[in-house]
């Protein structure tokens, strides 16, 4: 099932002219790709070739994000090669090599594993092919090899969760208490960043103690099992007053199991305060229902537009900042209406 698909976004009508030109150009290069540098000429997006290496359509988040970028580039006349994979670093490494062999003007890379892609990024840099890193922050070792990194505000997402949690706890009338964090895959780059943001807020509010941080691997079932057991564990130790589920799925798992365990949920009910740090429909529903206190704005659509903007900027101007981070907004019951549409795609 390992998926290595390239999707040529150009419709068949578009195929003929630019594609044949590209084919001719590439056959002239003989596939070696090393000798001819990328055409970095500034100007328009029109006619530029871009390789998008990202997670595949099997994942709804990726689907929205990727297709947003491709549709935009295509409408501006660029030629996009779409290389999908299912979070498989080995496949992605080959896809980068594949892209290099076609000598594109730009590679947009969402690395499944930032560290495992470092050698591939280095090979791209050696051929002067620019890479814009997206979604997850680059590994420190990889930073020298990328042109720019356009990221969601991972630290801010965590910070927002912390702020929401403190606000919620105060609203619930909790003066001091236990907080647990159920996270995504700890091995990835962005999870520690979000935790860093979260902890920076929590550290300033020592009356609320983060007693457990557990890795649920972004898996709601794991989150459910963990939280069930944590509720049991802390039942006689003052209970759990606040919980941070890193994604809305994880937060939902916590809410469901809390209800099953007979724990009151919702700040308004003076119950458990649950917060999250992205932007799924289930989170919005839970906020509206009063079960979840808040979340943040990590929406694939919004972030896709952000990336589009900077990719276009790069393709037209030839350079952008080395690190561009999206501003993230807190979502709570107060402003949930504004974000409902943005956050309902998943």
């Amino acid at each position: 099932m390992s998926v290595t698909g390239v999707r040529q976004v150009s419709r068949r009508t578009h195929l003929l002219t630019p594609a044949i030109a590209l084919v001719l150009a590439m056959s002239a290069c003989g596939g070696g790709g090393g000798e001819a540098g990328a055409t970095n000429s500034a100007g328009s997006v029109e006619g530029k070739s871009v390789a998008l290496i990202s997670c595949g359509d099997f994942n709804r988040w990726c689907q929205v994000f990727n297709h947003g970028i491709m549709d935009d580039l295509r409408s501006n006349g660029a030629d996009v090669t779409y290389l999908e994979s299912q979070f498989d670093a080995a496949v992605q490494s080959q896809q980068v090599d594949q892209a290099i062999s076609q000598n594109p003007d730009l590679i947009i890379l969402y690395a499944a594993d930032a560290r495992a892609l470092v050698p591939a990024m280095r090979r791209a840099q050696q051929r002067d092919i620019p890479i814009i890193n997206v979604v997850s922050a680059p590994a420190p070792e990889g930073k020298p090899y990328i042109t720019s990194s356009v990221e969601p505000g991972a630290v801010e997402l965590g910070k927002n969760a912390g702020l929401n949690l403190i606000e919620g706890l105060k609203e619930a009338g909790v003066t001091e208490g236990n907080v647990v964090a159920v996270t995504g895959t700890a091995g990835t780059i962005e999870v520690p960043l979000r935790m860093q943001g979260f902890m920076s807020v929590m550290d300033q509010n020592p009356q609320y103690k983060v007693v457990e941080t557990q890795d649920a691997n972004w898996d709601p079932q794991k989150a459910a099992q963990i939280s069930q057991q944590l509720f049991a564990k802390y039942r006689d130790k003052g209970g759990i007053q606040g919980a941070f589920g890193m994604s809305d799925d994880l937060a939902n798992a916590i809410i469901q199991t809390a209800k099953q365990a007979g724990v009151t949920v919702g700040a308004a009910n003076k119950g458990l305060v649950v917060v999250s740090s992205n932007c799924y429909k289930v989170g919005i529903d839970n906020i509206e229902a009063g079960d979840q206190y808040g979340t943040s704005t990590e929406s694939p659509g919004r972030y896709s537009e952000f990336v589009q903007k900077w990719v276009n900027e790069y393709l037209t101007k030839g350079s952008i900042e080395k690190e561009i981070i999206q501003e993230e907004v807190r979502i709570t019951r107060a402003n949930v209406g504004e974000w409902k549409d943005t956050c309902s795609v998943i």
Partner: protein
Amino acid sequence: MTTRPGMARLARRSRRGGLPYVLLVVMLLVFVVLPVVAGQQVTSFNYYNLFQVFASLGLLSVALGLTMIAGEFDLSVLGTYAFAGLVAVKLGADDPVVGLLAALVLAALIGALQGALVAWFRLPSAAVSLGVYIALLGLTATISDSKTVPYNNLNVSDVLDRQYLEIFSLRSIIAILAVAAIAVTMTYTRFGRDVRAIGSDRRASLRIGVRVDSILVVLFVLSALLSALGGSMLALSLAAATPDPGFDPLIFALTAVLLGGVSLRGGTGTVLGIAAGILTLSLLRELLTVLATPTYVSSLATGGLLLVVAFAAAPGLNAWWLSMRRPTKRVAEPPSLSRVG
């Protein structure tokens, strides 16, 4: 007529199990022709890529195929693949060769342990190896703390993956040599012959005097070594060891092995056939890449291939077909008896 030249031998062999090679040639033709028709470009890079896949998933496939030839099914190769990568990166920090050797040694131990369990306790290998696979994933996650472990010497990656002769790399050359060595062992040595004998009919082999138990242990060791070689070279090449490779590599390996003409019941199939199967499957995936098909096509193709092979190789297919052909004038079937059967 007694001693024939090698080529003639090869010809005889391939005539017997020629399907994998035919498939490969057909696939190669399709791979050359179809993209041109569709207005796409196949470059030498695509062939380089083919062998890069061979160096990781290919070795894993041969590892899986070896035990299947002997009639066993070893799920744990996938665990060894991940574990060896971690060991190579962790212990090879100063010298990649040390890391590689450490990975191979540990893998050999795991293989020996598992082979001993399967052979001497007569355990069903699918179940044992499932347990070992889960345990290895856990061990890998524990050692790495579920995090990707980086390997700081990027030059190793460069050396391993630098292109030679346009389409090869050091990594793929090592893999090809390893597979060639195994192929020679399986074709021309007593060991290889005994492995096929065991897979073909274990009871008869025992009666004739084949040392079934020790051969199984050695075989599991070899299988573990191959998957460890693939996994550790991949980790060095990526300059990182990922704790969980997912289940996809095993699906690739299984499909490649079956395309390579290895029977599900054991006893048949050759390493060369498996190699052909690997290349065929890699070509197919590369073709789908070049033709820009959506991801699900790859899933559908793999699933379809597996089911077709499972169907075509099913031992009961012939009997079923024969019984389907004449359901006509069935023998007396009083309605009252229908529940018996």
